[in-house]
């Protein structure tokens, strides 16, 4: 057994693991290269987008002197930017309001070359406010309708053909292009949705008399933030419903059974032993929906958004109804306007990239918040 001589000596020159190139190995190399390239392609695209926006947008928002942030960009609303040269060759660049002031202060100043750049001056306060309002309305409406629908689908409805079709319809809604939602919102919320009013307008389709000389008039809400908010809500309903249903399904059947077995009514069981535990999950998932809604242009283009508005929403009205029935500026629409609907020049660039940069950072913060909340929520869930 231990006789070494019987074992053939290992010859160094014959490596049994010598590299051999076989067709299979070549195929393997090609496939892994292609896969890697595809992944890198996405990375390169993402890096290019982010870096370009940061490179051109960050200088608009940040500055080297205190307070290091260009506060004016956040507190002013978009204005026309004026550029001009005086006779003595000095070059001026200022917002339109400053320009009027300057002309009053320098009545003798002769202007030789003057250009105006629409929407390129001021800041983005108006669009930010508008987007915030639209998003808030959207979330309230979408959460309410989505939550109730999900509770009905998951807890009350009986399983069957019809319910399967309802679910299918909801899921298909997710595939409808957003411009179609925009037109739908225009048709329904802007032109047909009911309002209570003393004097119905000519265009009202149907007037149902109510007490006190008022009418329920189907005349629509006009182009308004509430119409936009509702349109956005309808658009993300499929996402919200799916998210809510998912959260409801994650609640153990045992909670429902236990409370029913204690003599709870169905609603008591749902409201006390299901919804409280499902709610954080629903909210978390819905925040991701917010990020999508905030960035949509098409649904608000016809229903709510204005390229320019002098006054902020609360400066324009003194009633609640008036507040919600006015149009607003909105970030995505503002970006569309400055990017595609005005003549381009070097003076329009700061507004363009600044807006995109701020908006991108905001949306990414929301997405990050949503992910953070989800992780946190998963950790807390114990059942």
């Amino acid at each position, binding site marked *: 057994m231990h006789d070494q001589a019987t074992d053939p000596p290992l010859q160094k020159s014959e490596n049994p693991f010598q590299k051999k190139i076989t067709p299979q190995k070549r195929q393997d190399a090609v496939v892994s290269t292609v896969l890697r390239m595809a992944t890198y392609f996405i990375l390169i695209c993402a890096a290019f987008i982010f870096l370009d926006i940061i490179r051109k947008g960050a200088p608009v928002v940040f500055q080297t002197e205190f307070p290091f942030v260009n506060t004016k960009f956040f507190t002013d609303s978009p204005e026309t930017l004026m550029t001009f040269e005086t006779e003595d060759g000095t070059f001026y660049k200022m917002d339109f309001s400053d320009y009027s002031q300057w002309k009053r202060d320098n009545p003798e100043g002769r202007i030789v070359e003057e250009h105006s750049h629409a929407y390129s001056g001021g800041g983005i306060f108006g669009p930010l406010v508008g987007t915030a309002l639209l998003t808030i309305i959207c979330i309230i409406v979408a959460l309410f309708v989505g939550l109730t629908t999900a509770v009905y689908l998951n807890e009350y409805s*009986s*399983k069957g053909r019809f319910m399967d079709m309802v679910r299918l319809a909801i899921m298909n809604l997710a595939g409808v292009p957003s411009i179609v939602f925009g037109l739908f919102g225009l048709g329904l919320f802007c032109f047909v949705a009911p309002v209570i009013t003393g004097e119905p307008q000519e265009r009202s389709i149907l007037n149902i008399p109510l007490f006190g000389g008022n009418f329920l008039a189907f005349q629509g809400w006009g182009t308004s933030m509430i119409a936009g908010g509702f349109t956005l809500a309808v658009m993300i309903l499929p996402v919200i419903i799916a998210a809510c249903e998912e959260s409801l399904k994650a609640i*153990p059947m*045992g*909670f*429902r*059974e*236990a*409370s*029913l*077995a*204690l*003599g*709870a*009514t169905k609603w*008591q069981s749902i409201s*006390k*032993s299901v919804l409280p*535990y499902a709610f954080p999950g629903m909210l978390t998932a819905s925040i991701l929906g917010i990020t999508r809604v905030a960035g949509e242009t098409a649904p608000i283009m016809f229903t709510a958004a204005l390229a320019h508005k002098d006054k902020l929403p609360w400066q324009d009205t003194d009633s609640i109804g008036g507040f919600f029935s006015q149009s607003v500026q909105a970030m995505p629409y503002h970006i569309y306007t400055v990017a595609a609907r005005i003549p381009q020049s070097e003076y329009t660039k700061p507004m363009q990239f600044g807006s995109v940069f701020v908006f991108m950072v905001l949306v990414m913060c929301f997405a990050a918040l949503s992910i953070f909340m989800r992780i946190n929520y998963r950790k807390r869930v*114990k*059942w």
Partner: protein
Amino acid sequence: MSDETREGSLSTDETPGGSSAVAPATADTVIEVDDVNFAYVKGKDVLRDISMQINKGQVTAFIGPSGCGKSTLLRCLNRMNDLIPTAEITKGEIRILGTDIYDPSVDVIELRKHVGMVFQKYNPFPKSIYENVAFGLRIQGIKSKSVLDEAVERSLKLAGLWEEVKDRLDSSGLGLSGGQQQRLCIARTIAVQPKIVLMDEPCSALDPISTTIIEELITQLKDEFTIVIVTHNMQQATRVSDRTAYFYLGELIEMDDTIKIFNNPSRKETEDYVSGRFG
């Protein structure tokens, strides 16, 4: 059931009077199952011709191989099967305290207040220990702190958990051990003072020590409650129950005093099962 048992007694040399289950409902009978068929899906009966009587203040054990319908029958007794849309009793009647519980005039909410249930997988709510026990009373609209305090203390004491948790009633019920959680669930069930407590394999997820504690608890609780327990554990059935029902493939093969079922059953099938020669 009468058919079953009579058949059983005839085919053996037993004295015919041995099957006390055929005795007519007495004042002590709280649950009467009368020739019941039950189907989850139309046309497929999973319970067939079940008749039995369950007596007040006794522990009744349901035994039988997996899938024979023990849980199904148990869940018929507090109408938990109502949650399954197509499920229904296709024949017969279940009477509790003399009332047909599937009669349209019966309010299932009221029924479940009288017939509580403890589940196989302990399922306390993610609430405090106190709120878990108080849940059943709160949903009945009881708000008085003193009433709730009193009920929580009494139920936890009955469930043998009071000494262990009295200093941390406000901490989460999920922070307890498995056995404690199951006792918390028992406390939660008895807090609404049901007449009957149904238990579906209450110890199957527990370690032997917790199991022993719960078994002791069950024997103490039977003074106040009528208990029906499903178990796979033969020893458990002998330890805790007064009467035992053996099910096989959706039929009640035999129901009798536990001592008799385990020592001298009328039916061959029962003997094979309880002695482990099943199959």
